[in-house]
């Protein structure tokens, strides 16, 4: 009986190391092999009961128009990315399957979908999907985070400042490398 318990314990302990280990491995692969994209950001409010304080991010590039009305809230969606002329990330495709011939795509979730509408133009066949990226929290040291959040909030509303998240993208995954204000990482930023 005790022998089986020990074998069971060893298996359990192994899984308890493998799950966080896999978390590390997946992200290390993205950081090493991924392409860096700059995502223009907009701000919101920060706290996770176990992981601590963070700067909550919402991205300017968060919507895409599609000819498909069957998209639902919470559905997985693959987002193909390119860099635009000003150096920021741009969505060029969105679909239920990963885009072929590239590693630069993200597996995100649909926040919600609405019929296309821009000013007076309303379409019956075109829909706008709003995207929830798998990276929206930037964790920081407890005492730095609120100040950073405030600075970030003030600066992102002022278009004269340049704020973006530097995210490594690789085969559906994305890891935030840095949050940058006026070309300086937020950790080094002082008001």
């Amino acid at each position, binding site marked *: 009986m005790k022998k089986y318990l*020990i074998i069971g*314990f060893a298996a359990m302990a192994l899984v308890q190391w493998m799950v*966080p280990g896999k*978390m590390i491995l997946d992200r290390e692969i993205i950081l090493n092999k991924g392409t860096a994209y700059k995502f223009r950001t907009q701000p919101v409010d920060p706290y996770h009961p*176990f992981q601590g*304080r963070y700067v909550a991010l919402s991205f300017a590039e968060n919507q895409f128009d599609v000819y498909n009305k069957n998209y639902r809230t919470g559905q997985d969606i693959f987002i193909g990315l390119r860099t635009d002329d000003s150096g920021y990330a741009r969505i060029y495709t969105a679909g239920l399957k990963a885009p072929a011939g590239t590693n630069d795509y993200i597996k995100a979730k649909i926040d919600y979908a609405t019929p296309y509408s821009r000013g007076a133009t309303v379409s019956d066949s075109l829909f706008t999907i709003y995207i929830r990226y798998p990276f929206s*929290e930037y964790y920081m*040291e*407890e005492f730095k985070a609120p100040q950073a959040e405030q600075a970030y909030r003030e600066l992102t509303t002022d278009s004269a400042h340049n704020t973006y998240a530097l995210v490594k993208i690789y085969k559906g995954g994305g890891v935030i490398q840095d949050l940058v204000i006026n070309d300086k990482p937020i950790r080094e930023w002082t008001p």
Partner: protein
Amino acid sequence: MSQRLFKDLNELVDANIISAETASQIDAYYQRKSPASSNRLTATLSVLGALLAGAGILLIVGHNWERLGKGVQTILAFTPLAIAQAFCLFALLHRNDSQTWKEATALFLSLAIPSCIALIGQIYQVSGGLDSFLLTWVALCLPIVYIMRSSSVSLLLIGLITWYACLTGYNAPFSYRQLIIPYWYPATILLLAPHYFRLARQSPPGNAFHLHNWLFAASFAITLGIFMEKDDRLFEWLFIGYTCLFGIYLLIARLPLIKQQKLSANPFILIGTGGILVIFLTWSFNWLWIELASNNQHNQDEGFAVSITGLSLLLAWAYAYARSARKLPLTTWDIPSLSPLVFAAGVLLLKNNPIIGILLCNAWLLLLSVYYIRMGAIKDHLGILNFGLAIFASIAILRFFDSNMPFIWRGLIFLATGAGFFIANNLILRKRKRMAKNAGV
């Protein structure tokens, strides 16, 4: 044995009330008993220590030590996990007979796991959300319950999976917006069931069994709303579902294993009775009945609708009631556990008759009040008797705010309630005095 008892024993021997032999037997009895209670204290303190140490690590991790660098942070993430696993292995190999060791180390391990995941989450900016964090935590801790035979981890997991279910399943209380159904909740509860039944088989059942009863009863009551269909046409079924759940609780409370316990160790009777009373008191007002009638009129064109979850619960209650009633003689039939039938019949058949519906709810509450007053009188139990009177008083207080009832009636109800409290308590106290006097003679 306490110094005080020791002194009292000597005093009783000196006064020739008990013999020296009886005194030494009492002394020996308490000497035998004390190790068990001191073991319980050690176990409680150890579990509390592990809980505090684990929670402390979790909070320290929450600070975020980004200045230490990725390598050091990763080592720090796995250090508490490695230490906790080493403690657990030591407990399994060398302290397998000590439940205290197993409980404390298991609980420490179950708190070292989230601290490890949280630190890696910080290092790599993982934004999975609290729900997926809780689910990973529960999944990695489940084997600990069986390998370490730990009830404290099982209790922690019931709490965590309830939290997860609420995060994913509830948009806002009683909201009709359908979110994701957290199927991992029933799956986890089923996986914890064998541990619970093992605790139930122990004789006599320990504190862990009672704590599981409390957490399970509370957890099911909290999460039931998630599994009810979110549809305007089925809003009465949410209440039928809850009445059935509370009705089933009252039937569970009649099982011999639960019935023998103290009231504080019987969550099924406390939550069941409380829940049923709250539902009937809420429906004793007219607003829900009016909403039900207008909903019914509005939805008539859309055809008959029934909630599968609600109907299943109603059938489950009916089956449990039939089984329970077969075992008990007719006279001891429990009126409160019939409440689901009365409520379901009321809201389903009286949709277009709010007045009769309101009267039915008030009449049923009155009957419950009389039932408890009578039971209190028969059992010579002032607590039960006053509980019955308190139900009556609640009806009176709620009707006080009901502008549909004439002042004269409301006044009379209040006078009757006050007189009822006074007369019933007085009668019981007199009966007790008379019995004490007869016993004295």
